[in-house]
């Protein structure tokens, strides 16, 4: 333990409105802390720069899963344990629960929030590929009001995003229109539990009369932040999944991927595995789904 608890102020105003008022008073001065599974690790290592922290833990307005006719709305303070336990969500959008089961083990999942995962913005964030594949939108909130942006536009650079200093992530909106899509999520890493992904791919696609009418590909660790693979999507969209299509999609992915080299893996390995995962998904699309 290198951090000094007395060097940081931590307050818990207890309601969303009170937190937003505090953020608005002096934008940029307060850092939100939800489950703390990123920030307390930084604190332990003595590299938590924020001097003032405001707790989001226990705020009911941030921890909920709402089922609407057209969408699921997930509060940013919802834990991965909550997400795994929600039967309707798991049945309809199964990639979410599967990703949630990867975020460390049980004790971590009971604290780690989906909002913290997205705002922390690791290129390897495990919830990101599924959210990208499901065309998620994020809802941001401040005393100025709320706004919604496509999740695919949320991250702007390594660990950067579109949040203003007085804003919080309030919720994630997941459209309920994937029941007839083919869905795919695979993470490649050293160990299933407790291991950061080297590469992960989430995908949804609609195949009608043998033609891919809709496809979304979301990748972790194929860029400095989680990203859609728009060029690879374009190579498949409107086509039959032939060997040629697969080759074109692989090439497109290799051309657009900009993975980083780090201690977990090399950029070259990530690109090749990313292309292989895409190929695996596309080959699955050729097999007729079981009724």
């Amino acid at each position: 333990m290198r951090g000094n608890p007395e060097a940081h102020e931590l307050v818990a105003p207890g309601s969303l409105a009170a937190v937003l008022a505090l953020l608005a008073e002096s934008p940029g001065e307060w850092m939100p802390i939800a489950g703390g599974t990123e920030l307390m690790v930084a604190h332990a290592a003595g590299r938590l720069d924020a001097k003032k922290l405001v707790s989001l833990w226990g705020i009911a307005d941030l921890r909920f899963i709402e089922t609407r006719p057209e969408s699921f709305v997930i509060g940013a303070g919802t834990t991965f344990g909550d997400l795994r336990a929600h039967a309707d969500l798991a049945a309809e959008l199964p990639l979410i629960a599967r990703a949630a089961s990867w975020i460390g083990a049980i004790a971590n999942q009971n604290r780690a929030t989906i909002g913290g995962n997205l705002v922390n913005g690791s290129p390897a964030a495990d919830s990101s590929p599924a959210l990208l594949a499901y065309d998620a939108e994020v809802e941001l909130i401040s005393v100025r009001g709320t706004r919604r942006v496509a999740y695919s536009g949320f991250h702007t650079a390594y660990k950067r995003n579109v949040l203003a200093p007085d804003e919080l992530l309030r919720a994630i909106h997941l459209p309920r229109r994937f029941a007839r899509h083919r869905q795919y999520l695979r993470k490649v890493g050293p160990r299933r539990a407790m291991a950061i992904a080297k590469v992960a791919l989430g995908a949804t696609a609609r195949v009608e009369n043998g033609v891919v009418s809709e496809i979304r590909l979301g990748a972790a660790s194929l860029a400095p932040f989680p990203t859609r693979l728009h060029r690879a999507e374009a190579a498949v969209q409107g086509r039959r999944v032939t060997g040629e299509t697969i080759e074109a999609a692989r090439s497109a992915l290799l051309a657009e991927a900009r993975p980083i080299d780090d201690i977990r893996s090399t950029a070259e390995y990530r690109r090749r595995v990313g292309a292989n995962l895409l190929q695996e998904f596309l080959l699955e699309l050729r097999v007729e789904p079981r009724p």
Partner: protein
Amino acid sequence: MNNGWPTIHLTVNGQSRAIRTPAMKRLLDVLREDLRLTGTKEGCGEGECGSCSVRMNGELVNSCLVPVLQAEGAEIETVEGLARNGELHPLQKAFLECGGAQCGICTPGMLMAATHLLARNPHPDLAEIREGLAGNLCRCTGFIRIFESVIAAAAGSTQMRGEQAGHAR
């Protein structure tokens, strides 16, 4: 200087406690230093090893990653709360019986993770036990004896009970 410290209220193993402490102090340190409950161990200090696992409002958490202010008002269960009236908890007995504990550093966390697992799923299969304990690392036992201990406790082996009296100091 500590005038700015909040008073934190916890119910620890059924007892109400109030502690004045920096808000960012880890629940782990409050348990060990302020409350002298040193059963909860620190291994990695960063969420990886599970030796600091406790239950907070019925949820398994790593106490090294909980700033104590976020535990305000919470019910905390630690390894010290498992034994009742000098009688070891069935899981504790099973760990002794089956060789689930060697050096003992991981044991309090393993016991809390196993307690949490059995509270939700009284008869887990091996895969469920592995998942339930996946966040708890052990450098001594090779895990198999720990899994066997959990299976034995779940089975509620009665034979175990008599034999344990000798170990239970």
